[in-house]
């Protein structure tokens, strides 16, 4: 991505702000600067639209992760079984 400076934000900063916005963690000031940057920067506009699409897809997929305890319990079971086999 070209590192062009537009107004206050350069591309890397705009991307960073865009990433943060996906998690609702960018401040209003940052958002304003990003929007100003987006008006002039097409690559960053593309990035933003792709990024928000990704967020939507992840939300839509309804993914879940297993908890650490569950993982530990499985790991213990596997290790026990392997030890049993070896002995």
């Amino acid at each position: 991505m070209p590192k062009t400076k537009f107004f206050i934000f350069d591309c890397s900063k705009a991307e960073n702000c865009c990433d943060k916005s996906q998690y609702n963690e960018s401040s209003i000031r940052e958002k304003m600067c990003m929007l100003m940057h987006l008006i002039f920067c097409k690559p960053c506009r593309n990035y933003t639209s792709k990024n928000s699409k990704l967020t939507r897809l992840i939300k839509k997929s309804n993914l879940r992760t297993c908890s650490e305890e569950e993982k530990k319990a499985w790991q213990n079971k596997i290790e026990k079984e392997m030890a049993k086999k070896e002995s």
Partner: protein
Amino acid sequence: MPTHKLDPTKWVDKYSDYLFNYAIVRVNDREVANDLISETFLAGLNSKENFEGRATERTWLISILKRKIIDYYRKTNSIKGQAEVRINYSDSENDGDWLEEQVADAFDRTAEDEMENTELGMAILECLDQINEKHAAIFKMKTIDEADTEAVCKEFNISPSNLWVIIHRARTALAACLEKNWF
């Protein structure tokens, strides 16, 4: 063709999320999914010798899990008795309604959507498999578990700016991968 090898010590780290998401949408119960996965791992260990290396570890584990899910439904079905299917349109009360009932509702795409969403979830996890393990773990914690930045930083012992760089790389890689495999 490269032959694949099994490494049971890494199964949990590598495949548990994938297997879990596969199971949970099919049995719809966390406890049951949990049991099925643990059975899958044990069955995998016990039939390690039968693995010929033609499929990847993940495909092989999924095929075991599929069997386990089928077994689970067989078991619950035999407890409950045979599943009943009743099609009864000779009912005099409902006379005349049946034609409308049989027409598919054009706006009801939920079943299909659900299926597509499940596949999408699996595609995302497959793509995450291809990026750096640590980055994938951080991305999962931040995005899927929706953990606070602070919590993630503490857990992985990284600075916030470090975190955002990792998230950025993971998102770019994931978007590229999904574009290739999903759309």
